[in-house]
């Protein structure tokens, strides 16, 4: 080997370098892959701060839990929108199955994007119903994985 360093994926990962003030930025963001192993924990300790959310939600919690047809729609939508960054279990964007953002907090990030990261705003491209379908698919996947 020409190179003196032995590389393993585990050892090269950044660990827990998450200042509290950066949590809003790292959770569920496309540019936040560097904290993916820790984002769930970080979010649990530092939930996104509630900012004034004046959006008039059609639903305030997952309306499609257990609805297989809507979840299948959600899977199709996920593949044609989220997948290109988040892949199946995280890529340039974090693994969404591990996201602890609940219900409207999740929808809000999809709708508005995440400033300072590569997560774009999907309003105008996806309807709220489509966002909820995607959310329902991700939650179903996450529960299936547990």
């Amino acid at each position, binding site marked *: *080997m*020409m*190179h003196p*360093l*032995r*590389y393993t994926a585990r050892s*090269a*990962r*950044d660990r827990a370098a998450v200042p509290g003030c950066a949590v809003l930025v790292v959770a569920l963001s*496309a*540019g936040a*892959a*560097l*904290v*993916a192993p820790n984002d769930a924990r970080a979010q649990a300790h530092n939930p996104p701060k509630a900012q004034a959310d004046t959006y008039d939600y059609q639903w305030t919690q997952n309306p499609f839990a257990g609805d297989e047809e809507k979840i299948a729609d959600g899977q*199709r939508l996920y*593949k*044609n*929108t989220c*997948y*290109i960054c988040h*892949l*199946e279990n995280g*890529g*340039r964007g974090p693994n969404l199955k591990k996201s602890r953002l609940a219900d409207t907090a999740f929808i809000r990030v999809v709708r508005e*994007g995440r400033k300072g990261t*590569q*997560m*774009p*705003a*999907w*309003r*105008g*491209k996806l309807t709220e119903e489509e966002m909820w379908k995607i959310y329902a698919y991700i939650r179903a996947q996450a529960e299936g994985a547990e």
Partner: protein
Amino acid sequence: MKTATRKRMLAGIAATMIHGLSPVSAAEVVTDEELRGAPANAAEWLIYGRTYDNQRFSTLTQITPENVAGLRPVWAFSLGNVDGVEATPLVDNGVMYVSGPHATVFALDARTGRRLWQYKPEEPEGLGTVLCCGPVNRGVALWGDMVYVMTLDARLVALNRDTGAVVWEKTFGDWQQGYAATGAPYVVKGKVIVGVAGGEYGIRGYLQAYDAKSGDLAWTTYTIPAPGEPGSETWTGDAWKTGGAPTWQSGAYDPELNLIYWGTGNPGPWVAELRPGDNLYTCSLLALDADTGKIKWHYQYTPNDGWDYDGNNAPILADVTIDGKPVKAALQSNRNGFFYVLDRTNGKFLFAVPTVEGINWTTGLDPATGRPTVNEAMKPKADQKTVTPIVPGLEGGTNWFPMAYNPDLGYAFVPVNQWAMSLTSHKKEDIAYKPGQVFMAMDYKMHTQGDTVGHLKAFDVANRKWVWDIPSPLPLFAGVLATKTGLVFTGDQLGFVSATDAKSGKVLWRFQTGSAINASPITYEIDGRQYVAIPSGLGGDPSFYYQGPKGGTVWVFGLEPLSAEEAYSGPWSGHVVPVEGGLTPVPAQ
């Protein structure tokens, strides 16, 4: 030297103009003659590939294999962004022009790293929904008194070289339909040529040329023929309308043949059986008339691609001896795992060699034409069955990063990656084109094949043999620079910039830049000092697979540091500017 007073321009965050004085002349402008004469102008780096032949070969001689171990940082400049840097900086008349992500452009004093101006384009909300691979940008182009950059939302912006002010801008693609831009514009004969990204969004690719001075559209050439045009017989039904063939990397130019060479990307959707035929001109090299943009010949590396084997990486134009005969060749290292040598006068296949081991999407290339015999077992169908392991993975082989060529040795220095992938199509009845939406219809997974992914390899073109191979634990995504003194510079995913002996493949110097290097090194000379510059900053495709320290920085190295006085020579008033209202004078008593 003349000095130019720089005006302050305030336009919110859209453009940040830094006032101050520059030691550089404002009178000299870049001409077509100067661009053609780049081979003899070793001190500057005026074109993406340094010269129109893309060799990235410098005849500067101060830095040698004997003294390169003494290279040390001269200055560094933070690009202020964590989204990844893929640019090749340009240097003209003492100024470095470099782009960061989001097509932000910086003009820096190339001796000291002092910021002269910067330009940051505004971006529409939701633009990120059509960026497959991050908000990257691969560089700018120079002509006249202007600097050209392509924004992610497919605008060509001409900036005044001395102020960074927008002179004109042209929208050349509709981002809402998935047309984006990440490459460096390419100037030939007073026209700026631009290409589009969007092969994952069902676009129909094209190239356009704009008058460098006025911004008027000169020509448009689609990379997928319309029905009735030559090549249209390689499509079935309406597949051509959403067939891809993006043009997201720069080109090459042969002034004698008056041909521009440009590579094209993958067809859409990725599921090949949905678009029967060869699908011209996807995954191809095009030779275009430099005046009209008309396609003179094409060479398709991967007909009816089903593996996302884009052929965008621009060729190196080199005059080589093949089987005892002098040949005007085009060299291209492809994502499909082969290094191609073509006759650039007519597009005839000369030979190809594998760059990676265990290629299995094809059982081999036709020795006369290079046409691959496809291994159908390794070509995914629209049946949701996972095909694995396909070698190479879709990242290649060699992705977009430019290799270099040393004409004295006849060696090409090629970064390649040895890895594999799985592909699984979506359910056939679910596959439908929707404007601005992802049109891949395929799930993919990249796989390692052992401990080592990256290899920097030297290829002796005339003798058709690999000379040396430097493994790198992580994939290589940086461009390469070769020098006449027998050095090869590049960067790696651990963040090291390195210098290697071109003949022996011995690594002679390494420096840790703080973040992964996915950009391309250059070299230039000012006041008798030779510098090597390379931007670092993790992002782009490697960020799908690796996490690491982030942040874009341009690093510049030389053999001797500037003196304390030289390094400080300003004025630095534009480098760091006061926050408005942040500090105010002591109130009057």
